[in-house]
């Protein structure tokens, strides 16, 4: 147990060192070294990182951290909502599919999910905008909220901040912000839904073949109770483990989706920075997103191992 945690921590630290090295290389590439040598530069750079000074964006002149954090919060709002929705929908359809495996309904669900997983995100985003927003004129597609509303920047999450406005504008701005969510969330969550369906289907099917499920059935418990209490709970660790790749997938599709919908998050920020050769923003993106990915991956693996560990009563299984 302790060894597992130690391995993960060492892995995490190694990756952080590699990422820091990469961003330092970026930094040194564009800077005129002059008289100082590389080692002194490295010490100065590490000092700056420790005091959370990531430099100034060359395009807008503001501090990079002050631009990055609101963008990160805006993106994470979108990503979290879409992952939650896609997890719920994927679990529902996946369990349905697993329980009726090898029937027509199951093959319908899996074939539809394969079809949807083949759709590229950028095309889907544009089609959603053109059809739903422009042709049918139902909901808007650009920005997080109509720019005519003034939203105080308290938390950075638009759904919370619009509720904090005092006055008559309160509900209309909240609904306006809410109306800007469906299209990016749909564009972003189609692919994770298909992944969740596939994972849940495999995991749940494997669990349903276990002996304890058959015993519970033979004891006469209701099927719903068995599925909800025994089957899904035991299927979850495996789903957790594989969901880290889904989260990464979402974070990379968020770049395309944000650019299509003009959502002010890290996706837009990184594309602008690449166009403008803004190395400071690129390196902070690399650092933070890289650390986030590795951290999430290790956390989810550790969670799965914890479940396994406590389920088996504290006995080490397979080291």
């Amino acid at each position, binding site marked *: 147990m302790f060894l597992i945690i130690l391995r993960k921590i060492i892995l995490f630290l190694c990756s952080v060192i590699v990422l820091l090295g990469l961003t330092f290389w970026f930094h040194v590439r564009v800077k005129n070294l002059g008289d100082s040598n590389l080692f002194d530069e490295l010490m100065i750079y590490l000092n700056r990182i420790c005091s959370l000074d990531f430099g100034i964006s060359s*395009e*807008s*002149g*503001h501090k990079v951290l002050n631009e990055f954090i609101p963008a990160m919060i805006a993106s994470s709002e979108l990503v979290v909502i879409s992952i939650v929705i896609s997890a719920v929908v994927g679990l529902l359809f996946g369990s349905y599919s697993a329980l009726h495996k090898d029937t027509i309904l199951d093959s319908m669900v899996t074939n539809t999910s394969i079809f949807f997983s083949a759709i590229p995100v950028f095309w889907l985003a544009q089609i959603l*905008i*053109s059809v739903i*927003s*422009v042709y049918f*004129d*139902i*909901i*808007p*597609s*650009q*920005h997080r909220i*109509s*720019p*005519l*509303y*003034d939203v105080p920047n308290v938390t950075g999450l638009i759904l919370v901040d619009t509720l904090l406005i005092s006055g008559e504008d309160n*509900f*209309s701005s909240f*609904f*306006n912000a*809410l*109306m800007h969510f469906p299209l990016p969330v749909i564009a972003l969550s189609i692919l994770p839904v298909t992944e969740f369906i596939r994972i849940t289907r495999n995991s749940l099917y494997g669990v349903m073949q276990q002996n304890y499920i058959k015993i519970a059935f033979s004891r006469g418990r209701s099927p*719903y109770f068995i599925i909800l209490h025994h089957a899904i709970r035991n299927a979850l660790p495996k789903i957790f483990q594989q969901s880290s790749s889904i989260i990464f997938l979402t974070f990379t599709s968020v770049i395309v989706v944000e650019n299509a919908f*003009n959502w*002010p998050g890290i996706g837009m920020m990184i594309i*602008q920075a690449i166009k403008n050769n803004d190395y400071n923003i690129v390196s902070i993106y690399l650092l933070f997103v890289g650390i986030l990915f590795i951290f999430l991956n290790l956390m989810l693996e550790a969670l799965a191992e914890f479940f396994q560990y406590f389920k088996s009563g504290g006995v080490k299984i397979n080291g």
Partner: protein
Amino acid sequence: MHIIKVISLFLIAFFAVCLQSCNMDNVSRSQNGLIFCVNSNVSILDPQSSEVNVTSATIAKNVFNRLVSYNQEKNQFKSEIATSWSISENRLVYTFRLSPKVTFHTTPWFTPTRSLNADDVVFSFQRLMNYSSKKSQNRAEAGEQTAVIDSEEQAFIDEIQHINYKYLLQLRKIVRKIKKIDDYTVSFILADSSANFLAILAAPNSVILSREYFESLSDNPRREEIFSNSIVGTGPYQLVSHKYNDYIKLKKNPHYWQDPEKPLLSRLIIDITPNQAKRMNKILTDECQIASQPSKTVMALHERLQKNYSYIESQNTESTVFYLNTSKAPLKNVELRRALAFAFNRDLYRKIIYGESGEPANSLFPFAMKLDENIDYIFSYNVTNAGNFIDRYKRIHKVTTVPTLTIWIEQSNTKLGYNSARIGQVIKRDLKKIGINCNIIEMSEKTIKNLLPYQGYDIIVSQQPFSRLLPMYRLYHNFSCSSRGRPTRTNYSSFCDKELSDLIGSILYAAMDDETNETYNRIQEKLIQNVPFIPIAYNSDAFIYHKDITNLVSLLVNGFDFSQTGFKEHDPEEQ
């Protein structure tokens, strides 16, 4: 199952309430605001030092005031901050009396303690000119209240409305001294008696800034940046917030000194969207009520655009030009330059660069009036001629091939519909037809200017604004000897011909009339002889706006004056 039913019922009820209460079509009416979608970004909000485009012109017109303003319909100057002015007999001294009730904006970052006075005027212009004063005589005499413009000034006024801060630096040449006489009187002492000084003051960029605000930032290390970005002016709208490359939010100035009832709009948002398709989408979903540079194909496709939106063209013209490097071989040779001028099919280039709009540049000054129109542009598309010239070049210089040309293409998605990738392919194909190979490199305007002194190029493809009525400014910056090697780096052709420079300099500030006509013809002849550039096509800027918007005043240069703008009231019966 039971709980699932409850949850789904709740969600349905929630969304039903949502759809009821948020009627997306009327956001702009309910908030009494307007969204103006532009394609050009500004890096600094301060009009004295920002770029020349729609955004900066709109900000300059709506957030600030000038001393005088120009009324296009009545064709005269009217007072803005200056209630009256007098011009001395020798036309060298202009004295302005200022209105005592002009107030600055009250914003979260600055609260003014006094109204505008002569200190602010002197500060604003000194900031532009930044030179030390000399002692001089000052003679003020009583003059007329308003000056009616004669035709001699008319052309210059139109040209001045295109002015940008670089040209305002010419103020240094025209104005000798600015003097504060008392708290509400300022006088300008000029170096030469040009009749066009009022026009310079009426330009959108000659704004009056707050000296008190500048001094209140005196101990702040980021003073210039804050002063230029968190702007404080006297105009009908004030700044709320500014997100770089995203939007600029303005709101109504509740204590507007000129007219407390105006402006009618409580919010004005300038939304920066460089992509034309996205701008059109925003118009179609009513997320924008005014947009710059619309796409004609989209407008033809959607009937509701034709029904509800009006289309206007502005006077701003941009022209795509190939600049040939005349100081480096092989294009040092005039024969080769003439050969190249025959090699390009302008109509095709116009289609590639500007789509359905725009016109091919079939003469040297496509939009100059009063020129001798008999001079046919001799460089029409003629591949055989080009081939012949090249053969002659090869025979004379005893070479078998022309060396490979390096071509830099300016890459920009903020310019009028410019498609730099396609241009490269077509140029390569056209040059191959006459047997010349080339290297195409795309780079941004900044990079071109940085690398210009190293002379590593043969042709630069660039898009430049060409003034409709006075092309002399552009010619001065591009082809005169004095602009070579200057920090502004505008002489892309590295072209220096003493006689041509003198000709351009002699009519640089003059108005269009018969005397200058003769000089224009000679300049045109010289340019045709030497071919330092090949004009390809040009295009005008355009806007569409919703028909419900009333009193939208368009400026001669890009942008709009929103001080009178409001919405038309709809009858409840009509749709």
